[in-house]
């Protein structure tokens, strides 16, 4: 039995993909991104209440690329990297409370993430989207570099932070784009993406923009399994002798 378990464990180790070294930094970082709800907005829509069926979208500007996309340079004057998130659909907001402290949790279904490269640095967070500049100045340029579907996304807000701070996090399954082959982490399939970061619904000038619900400061990590080293049965057996 012990030998059978050992063989199974060894087989699993060999089966794991020989990945690159664990990347500590994000695959991409943005600064900033803004979420909005296109018309027609549901009655009662607010940071603490995103009624079921409400459609949320997002536009953002990439400020930094890390492995495995660190060959992309955001500082080139002839390049702009932007993303668009389309059609996340609210499943309704749940309120949890302790006395006067309340937190609001909204799960979303659907939604797509698309990354673009544009020779013109023309994206602008024009107020009151959608309009002639949003999302079009974020979706112009090349054919998409990456396309993915959200497999879930959660917005959390509250009434107990003085600067109106919460978080937005979701998971992405990559489906296409010219760079999808870079996301395999040494395996055969693209690793999932983790879209994560803080969100604020603070409306102070230079923080909030009229017509947008959330400013999001976040990043996208590639969720590859822990890297493994290629080995032989002989080398593996010597470890157990």
């Amino acid at each position, binding site marked *: 039995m012990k030998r059978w378990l050992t063989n199974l464990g060894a087989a699993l180790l060999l089966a794991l993909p020989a990945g690159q070294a*664990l*990347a*500590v*930094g*994000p695959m991409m*970082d943005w*600064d900033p991104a803004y979420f909005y709800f296109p018309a027609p907005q549901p009655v009662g829509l607010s940071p603490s209440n995103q009624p079921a069926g409400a459609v949320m979208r997002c536009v953002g500007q990439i*400020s*930094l690329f890390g492995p495995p996309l660190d060959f992309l340079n955001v500082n080139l004057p002839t390049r702009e990297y932007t993303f668009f998130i389309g059609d996340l659909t609210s499943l309704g907001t749940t309120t*949890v*409370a*302790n006395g006067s*402290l*309340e*937190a609001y*949790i909204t799960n979303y279904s659907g939604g797509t993430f698309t990354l673009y490269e544009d020779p013109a640095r023309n994206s602008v967070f024009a107020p009151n989207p959608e309009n002639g500049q949003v999302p079009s100045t974020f979706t112009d340029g090349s054919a998409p570099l990456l396309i993915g579907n959200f497999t879930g996304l*959660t917005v*959390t807000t*509250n009434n*107990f*932070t*003085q*600067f109106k*701070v*919460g*978080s*937005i*996090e979701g998971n992405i399954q990559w489906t296409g784009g010219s760079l999808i082959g870079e996301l395999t982490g040494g395996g055969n399939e693209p690793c999932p993406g*983790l879209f*994560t*970061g*803080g*969100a*604020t619904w603070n*409306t*102070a*000038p*230079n*923080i909030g923009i009229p017509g947008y619900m959330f400013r999001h*400061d*976040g*990043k996208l*990590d590639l*969720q*590859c*399994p*822990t890297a493994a080293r290629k080995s032989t049965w002989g080398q593996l057996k010597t470890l157990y002798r």
Partner: protein
Amino acid sequence: MRRFTTTLFLAACVLVAVPTAARAQSLLFDYVGFDYEDPKAPGSQFGDVGNGYVGLGTVPFLFAPLVSNTTDNEYTFVIDGLTSTGFTVVGPFRVVDYSPGTITIYEDAKAGGTTADFGTSPPNPASLATFTDGQPILVGQLTAFRFAIDNSNGTGSFEAVFTVTGGTQLNLFPLNQRVGWTFSGSTGNALNIPEGYAHQIDGQTFLNEPVSVRRTSWGRLKAGYR
């Protein structure tokens, strides 16, 4: 004595008149890294009373009035000195409040300097030293630090009032523009979190608009109180 007090009060009003309209804020720096607790009582949960909070990482973007050169230098940050003073449970959230602490930004030359390395199993003095080497260009006090963590899914966020108090670039900050705020998202779900760290964090710090002062005459000022 009364007249002297009144004069002193009026003088103070002239110097620190605060506008009532919403104030424009400006992004000062963006940071990304990981956090852990130190000290941490054995067997305790994140945010238990007495546990300390430490965050460290890199600062890829810095803005005026800070002066930076990200081509030649590496910028790192360390958040420390924060101690949990208590927490409130709100559904799946644990809302933790902390005593005041600091955030310090260090500038370290890439040539000849030490590249930041998170290492594992913090507190790890060798790793921490790679974030604290170089010049401390900015020191800010963090007050009203509040961390809300959703224990059902590992995500959270924190916020704090930020006040510039020191650093080699302190003199670049006008006396009437040293206060702002910071916020960050946090997640325990990223697979790239080094062993021993609690969360990945990604945040921004803003400066409030300068506190405005209006010129006036003693006569006009006195008239307002007659």
